[in-house]
């Protein structure tokens, strides 16, 4: 950075993404002109990415508490109690901008970063998920981006030995210049062995471990907070290269050290590296921190204080250790062949003091650096309501089965096998529900080191951006509800969510409106479903040349299953089972996949979300599952009921004989409408009476759809299609898009 020695000018301030008001505030806090290193530190700490300055006032509306929440937002990851002395620790994070510039490394380091967030809290990561949005399939960049991102996610996760068990992949032209790569990690820890980042103990040593620091991604955090324009592709900022091998060693070394009593506080170096980790530790602990930057292990010569503090080199951690444990800790890191350096000490000054070559490069008060970070009440306007589209405003198709075939082959509904077969989804040997079901299911030990039993975690990532675009509040609620429904469909009790809010430029009131309203919808749903938010991430400025992406609040949900042997799969289990649709069907076609894929219309209000019905229907389904009555189960989402049925048939190879739709609802509305709060499930003949009786008793809407069997999906009055024909259409999209290589 040539600017290091230079004087601070309005230009330098702007280059650091700071406004002149923000700079005035810096002058006030410092009581003098900052050094370049200090300015750099302010700029990353006050970037959108680290300070949440545009989003904070809205995020406050999300519910974050429940009796089972051990740690809500504010730490590296959220922590929930899952019984038996065990905790699930999880979070989702975006790596959108880096992945657009360098898809392989951008996605890989995104996965590496989120895993560090989880194991820094003492958890062993047990599952990864990834939510991906790409531009139109025929956009010239899409193929290259898909192949790089998927290879990068696999490359990192596979090497770490953590199974990648779920996620989503969507395509839409609004992501042409701004793909979304959201990665989620779920880890497992004992509730009495959770590690936090608040520094404590005056005089305790501050330790740097992991990989060496290079000049990687300097200004990554500010890059993640700036809008793209035509020439950012030209500028090509340095992106970080990931080293999953080093991270695997770091994981094992950290967990080994955590099993001892050595650690006082620990914080990974993520975005804004040493800066945010040291500031976080000291501000949370209310202590000062003095670092000797000459002791930081570096990979390159001549690195300045500015560069060392702002580097985003991967695979590094900062810890405060008990002094008496130093030797033991050093031995562990040496065993794993990682750097281990005492680089500083905790002080009572309340200041962050950085020295290099005996010279003080920065001396700044930590509390105001954090507390006085700007917070913006950005102006916002609501998205105008979209008209409700009724079934008679949409032409009915001639051939329902041809439409079905077209839908299951459409990019958003097509099989994602091409993607998840590149992910090791089996390593660790606990994957019960592999990718391809509603929620992934991973076995866990019974607790306190007990043998693996019947207990499992279920997890899923969900969002329907087209609903959010049409009506952000309904869309926000729907994303939460769908996540809850996916967990319910495998018999899990949904416990909590992490989120990843991907939006455009918050300085535009329409975008800020999408954000504010999506949060409102999410908050309502989370409250109604007892499904608090325990961690999350905000990614703004996903915008190219003033065109924003579809608002995409990705929801990552986690739930627990007490007896995994009862957890149903999507696949029909056997012939002769009775098929039921649970939940009310009005035949909602607005914003549906049917309307978009068959009629080329992206319009209308999205299906309403009735949270009371959602809860009632879900609790009903879960109860039946827990009683062992359900042989297969699938929630109804994109594409509607007939698509859900087709997915169950394709997963099993077993067909079904379906009754005609009810008279009052036209075919296309009944079969392809996307009404919420619905499930398709199957029961054995012998259990039909129990199901119907119970549903009537508590007032659950249900409808008998037909019976499983044969090798065709047959719909009375509409003809038949063979399951294998559907399946070849369903499996064709990705291999065709990505080239024939198998």
């Amino acid at each position: 950075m040539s600017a290091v020695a230079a004087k601070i000018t309005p230009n330098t301030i702007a280059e650091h993404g700071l406004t002149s008001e923000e700079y005035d505030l810096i002058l006030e806090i410092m009581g003098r002109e900052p050094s370049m290193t200090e300015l750099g530190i302010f700029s990353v700490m006050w970037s959108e990415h680290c300070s949440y300055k545009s989003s904070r006032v809205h995020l406050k509306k999300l519910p974050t508490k429940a009796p089972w929440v051990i740690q809500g937002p504010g730490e590296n990851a959220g922590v929930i109690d899952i019984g038996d002395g065990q905790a699930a620790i999880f979070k989702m994070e975006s790596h959108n901008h880096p992945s657009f510039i360098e898809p392989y490394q951008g996605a890989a380091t995104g996965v590496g970063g989120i895993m560090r967030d989880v194991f820094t809290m003492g958890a062993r990561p047990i599952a990864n998920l990834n939510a991906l949005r790409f531009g139109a399939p025929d956009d010239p960049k899409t193929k290259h981006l898909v192949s790089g991102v998927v290879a990068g996610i696999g490359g990192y996760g596979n090497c770490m030995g953590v199974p990648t068990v779920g996620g989503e992949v969507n395509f839409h032209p609004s992501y042409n210049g701004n793909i979304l790569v959201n990665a989620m990690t779920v880890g497992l820890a004992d509730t009495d062995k959770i590690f936090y980042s608040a520094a404590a103990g005056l005089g305790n040593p501050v330790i740097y471990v992991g990989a060496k620091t290079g000049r990687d991604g300097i200004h990554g955090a500010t890059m993640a907070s700036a809008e793209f324009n035509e020439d950012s592709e030209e500028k090509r900022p340095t992106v970080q290269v990931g080293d999953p091998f080093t991270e695997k060693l770091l994981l094992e070394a950290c967990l080994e050290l955590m099993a001892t009593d050595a650690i006082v506080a620990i914080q990974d170096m993520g975005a804004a590296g040493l800066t945010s980790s040291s500031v976080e530790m000291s501000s949370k602990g209310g202590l000062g921190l003095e670092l000797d930057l000459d002791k930081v292990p570096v990979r390159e010569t001549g690195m300045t204080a500015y560069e060392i503090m702002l580097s985003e080199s991967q695979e590094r951690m900062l810890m405060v250790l008990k002094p008496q444990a130093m030797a033991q800790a050093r031995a562990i890191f040496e065993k794993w062949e990682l750097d281990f350096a005492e680089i500083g000490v905790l002080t009572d000054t309340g200041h962050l003091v950085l020295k290099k070559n005996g010279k003080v490069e920065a001396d700044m008060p930590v509390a105001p650096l954090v507390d006085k970070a700007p917070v913006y009440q950005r102006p916002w306007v609501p998205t105008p309501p979209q008209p409700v589209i009724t079934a008679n405003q949409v032409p009915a198709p001639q051939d329902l089965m041809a439409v079905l075939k077209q839908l299951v082959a459409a990019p958003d509904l097509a099989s994602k096998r091409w993607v998840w077969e590149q992910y090791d989804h089996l390593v660790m040997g606990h994957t019960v529900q592999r990718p391809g079901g509603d929620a992934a299911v991973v076995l866990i030990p019974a607790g306190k080191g007990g043998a693996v039993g019947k207990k499992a975690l279920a997890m899923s990532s969900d969002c329907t951006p087209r609903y959010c675009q049409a009506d952000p509040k309904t869309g926000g609620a729907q994303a939460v509800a769908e996540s809850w429904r996916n967990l319910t469909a495998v018999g899990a009790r949904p416990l909590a969510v992490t989120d990843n809010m991907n939006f455009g430029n918050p300085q535009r009131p329409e975008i800020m409106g999408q954000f504010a309203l999506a949060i409102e919808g999410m908050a309502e749903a989370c409250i109604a479903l007892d499904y608090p938010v325990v961690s999350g991430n905000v990614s703004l400025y996903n915008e190219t040349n003033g065109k924003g992406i579809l608002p995409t609040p990705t929801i990552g949900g986690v739930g627990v299953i007490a007896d995994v042997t009862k957890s149903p799969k999507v696949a029909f289990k056997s012939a002769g089972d009775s098929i039921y649709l649970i939940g009310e069907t009005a035949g909602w076609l607005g914003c549906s996949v049917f309307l978009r894929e068959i009629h080329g219309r992206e319009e209308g209000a999205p299906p309403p979300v009735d949270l009371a019905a959602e809860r009632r229907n879900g609790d009903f389904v879960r109860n039946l599952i827990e009683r062992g009555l359900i042989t297969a189960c699938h929630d109804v989402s994109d594409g509607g009921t007939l698509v859900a049925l087709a997915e169950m048939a394709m997963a099993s190879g077993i067909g079904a004989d379906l009754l005609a739709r009810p008279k009052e609802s036209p075919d296309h509305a009944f079969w392809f409408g996307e009404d919420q709060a619905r499930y398709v499930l199957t029961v054995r003949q012998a259990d039909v009476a129990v199901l119907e009786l119970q549903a009537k008793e508590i007032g659950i809407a249900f409808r008998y759809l037909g019976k499983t069997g044969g090798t065709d999906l047959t719909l009375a009055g509409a003809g038949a299609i063979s399951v294998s024909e559907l399946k070849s259409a369903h499996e064709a999209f990705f291999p065709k898009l990505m080239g024939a290589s198998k």
Partner: protein
Amino acid sequence: MKSAIVVFPGSNREKDAEAALTEITGTPPVMVWHRDTELPKVDLVLVPGGFSYGDYLRCGAIAAHSPILREVKARADQGMAVLGICNGFQIITEAGLLPGVLQQNAGLKFVCRNVNLRVETSQSLFTSRYEKGQVLSIPVAHHEGNYYADEKTLDELESRDQVAFRYCAPDGSLDPSHNPNGSQRAIAGVFNRTKNVLGLMPHPENAIRELLGSTDGRGLFKAMAEALAA
């Protein structure tokens, strides 16, 4: 049966293998760190899957030169049983315990899925619990499993009954569309000449519970436990 698992920096299926050995043979294996220079007295050494040394340079190449591998090789020469799975197969092949090499998959992508494996011989301490021709469903998870050897070596392997498993269609027929990685002659696992060393790409340790998809891997562990019972 006493067994040991060699753990390299970057190994990642050592716990899966440990669980399988413990559950099926009844005795937990000893975990041996790569820097150790001596092996405990055991009947079997398992070299597990993963990304030893990050799979940098070539899969298995760096691990193959570790001191512990020298020891494994010496003991294998004296007849001790060695099982290399996935990265373990790559390592022991690089170390010269088995002929051939494992190249990048023909599809150039990592592939994780259940494959059909045809048992080519039941005449070994590893496969005696299976019938020749039996078709197993066992997962693979690798990027470099494309077995290559020159024609002469391949002919020799076949004539000496050294091919353990092949990738096949569900009915046992050989069909290129069921070969996940382009391996020559669909080879998924090979023995050394004396058949005390087996390397295979698929993961029998991930196929030991119905709940997790298959129990077809159990036979391999059972066979070893029987053959190597003290």
